[in-house]
């Protein structure tokens, strides 16, 4: 029992750390692409750790499955969104760069 809880706490803490890092990245990084990187990669990782921690914490396997599937869906959604935003930005940039260099 004890070990399980310790692992849970550690997982949660690691998750929180990644979230924090991701958020910092969003706030501090210079351009859209790196911000997107921070937001999606780091936060997804963070969410994964937290989900794992919670799944471990909750005894019922069904609930654990639910939590894992939540993580998977979020992963899917965020990576798609990330891709779309990045693509949109790229399309926006190209004609702009062509017209006014620098």
């Amino acid at each position: 029992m004890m070990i399980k809880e310790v692992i849970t706490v550690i997982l949660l803490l690691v998750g929180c750390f990644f979230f924090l890092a991701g958020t910092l990245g969003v706030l501090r990084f210079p351009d859209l692409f790196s911000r997107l990187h921070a937001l999606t990669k780091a936060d997804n990782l963070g969410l994964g750790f937290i989900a794992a921690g919670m799944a471990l914490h909750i005894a019922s396997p069904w609930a654990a499955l639910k939590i894992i599937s939540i993580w998977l869906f979020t992963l899917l959604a965020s990576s798609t969104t990330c891709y779309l935003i990045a693509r949109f930005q790229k399309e926006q940039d190209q004609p702009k760069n062509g017209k006014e260099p620098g």
Partner: protein
Amino acid sequence: MSVLIDLLLAILTVYLALQCLLAQRLSQSVFLFFAFGLALALAWVRLGAVDVAITEAAIAAGFMGVLFLDALRDFSPAVSENQEDLKAVQNPPSKNATKSLLLPRLALGLGLGLFLLIALEAVWKTPDGGGLTAAAVALLPESGVEHPVTAVLLNFRAYDTWLEIGVILLGLLAIYAAGGINLYRKPGVAAKDPLLRQVILFSTPVLFLFGAFLLYFGKTGPGGAFQAAVLWGAIGIMLHLGGWPVFAVLPRWLGQLILTLGLGFFLVLGFLFMARGDALFEYPPAYAGILILIVETLAAISIAAALTTIYANINQMQEEPKQNESTT
């Protein structure tokens, strides 16, 4: 500890609301609005109102947020009052003008502050009216469902709910009216991105199933027609975004049938039982459960359709050529 969480959440909600209105850029406002909606949803979870939380997150924050987000494409993103004020400071038009603007604002601010104090006193001192929990518990077995909120929505206060479904349809009609154009134009074709389309195709059945689950689960726990409708509506919106304008491929009458089915069936069922001598929306307890499920399903379909169409039509507006102004 729990008080601390609530306190933090309350402060966060208020902060987000304030920031949302004070944000420099319109896009910031909209994103903060999403955050505000989610914070509010959390608050409702804390208050034990899971149904409300789902509805809030799905409709108020989700659907409305999407609409706002979509609207950002229209409005120039940088405009906000603060920037205008900045401009005004940089080259003040005249001292009197700013003064005359300042004074009413100050008065309004003071008035609001005073109003806030009175409001706080009033809500703080609210006597305990006791609510209707006991009454709802007592009558729950007769309602045909086990979840009290669903019982209130679809049976005890079915009239309100029916009117509300009407309001959604009305909202759609109103948006048509705002367009100033003829009814039922076809939604346009959105951007086609292969990845997006694949993801949409993948999530459609998942969302559909989840919606159906919520709908059925509403009988016993948090969930029900509105929550399901939003999920299904989300399918419609995503399909629309992915370039499958659902309502464009359906025949006109079918689209209209889907839109009006919930409201119409709800009412016709009510009238049928009224013809039997009962009151409007009075269901025999034995059949109440199944009837409510049918009504809910149809309502969810209609609402989902309405949400999709609302999105499609608002989305559509900008492509529409300028209407000729009609003379009154």
